[in-house]
């Protein structure tokens, strides 16, 4: 039996309204929730984590509004967390698009890789005139370019 050796687990793309625009999976042996619950859980977690990270920041000037709502333009206050079994990396753009990449815990800093994936998204999805902004997308070119790029990261 061939073993799949890949360090990538899955990728989620959310927009500012919490809609999961894309879910791409490479290796995910254990699935406990339905897709919709899984996405809602992840979006909620990241929303809370970002807010928490901003509030706990010892260097913050205190000018920021400490209520729950924060404009996405602030930039990411956190970009990854790691556990024993996986590493989760986040890229949030000022336009509210969030890229979440779940990988093997031994992967290094993935910020540049996330930027490259953002560029792939722009080229194949945003620039596609048939794509309706704010809706989930399924684009073969995006998937194949993403797969090819991800192989170079292994």
């Amino acid at each position: 039996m061939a073993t799949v050796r890949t360090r990538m687990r899955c990728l989620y793309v959310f927009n500012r309204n919490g809609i999961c625009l894309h879910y791409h999976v490479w290796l995910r042996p254990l699935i406990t929730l339905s897709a919709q619950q899984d996405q809602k859980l992840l979006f909620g977690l990241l929303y809370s984590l970002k807010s928490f990270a901003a509030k706990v920041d010892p260097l913050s000037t205190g000018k920021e509004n400490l209520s729950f709502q924060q404009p996405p333009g602030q930039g990411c206050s956190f970009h990854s967390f790691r556990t024993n079994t996986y590493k989760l990396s986040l890229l949030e753009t000022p336009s509210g698009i969030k890229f979440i990449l779940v990988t093997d815990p031994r992967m290094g800093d993935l910020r540049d890789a996330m930027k490259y994936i953002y560029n792939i998204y722009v080229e194949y999805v945003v620039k596609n005139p048939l794509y309706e902004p704010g809706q989930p997308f399924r684009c073969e070119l995006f998937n194949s370019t993403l797969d090819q790029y991800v192989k170079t990261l292994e």
Partner: protein
Amino acid sequence: MAPTMRPGDAAFAAVEHVNAELFTLTYGAIVRQLLTDFEEIEEVNKQLDTMGYNIGIRLIDDFLAKSNVTRCTEFRETADAIAKVGFKMFLGATATVSNWNSDSTECSLILEENPLVDFVELPETCQGLHYCNILCGVIRGALEMISMRTEVKWIRDMLHGDDAFEMRLKLLDQVPEEYPYKDDE
């Protein structure tokens, strides 16, 4: 020592370029078709603005991906980024920002060169037409995606006899992100 590159130059170099004349002629063909379809000048101005809006909501991601801008909350910084990096990247022309009002919510963007209007002269019948209204829509759409609601209008238009292109950007409000799910779900 290498000459200092202005911030827009790097972004300009990174994008694919299209022939300027083709671009100008294509835009001219669009405006002519809109004039034939709608006949009323105000309607054409509105259509150009709507088209620009639809472009702007997508263009913002292209801009953010290629220009490495990660924070975008101050209106001042945003206006500078549009003028120096945005215009350079997409039109190959730089704009300058000026005439800020006292609480930094309004400013003017002045364009000395505008590739959309090369070879264009407005006839007598189209004097109310804002030929470049698409640019107003693009800026409005792009800023809306980064939580800034704005109003953008032309104040000076070289096709109407003025000496430069000047658009007025007015920030209406900054809408913060709302948590989309209700707490009880």
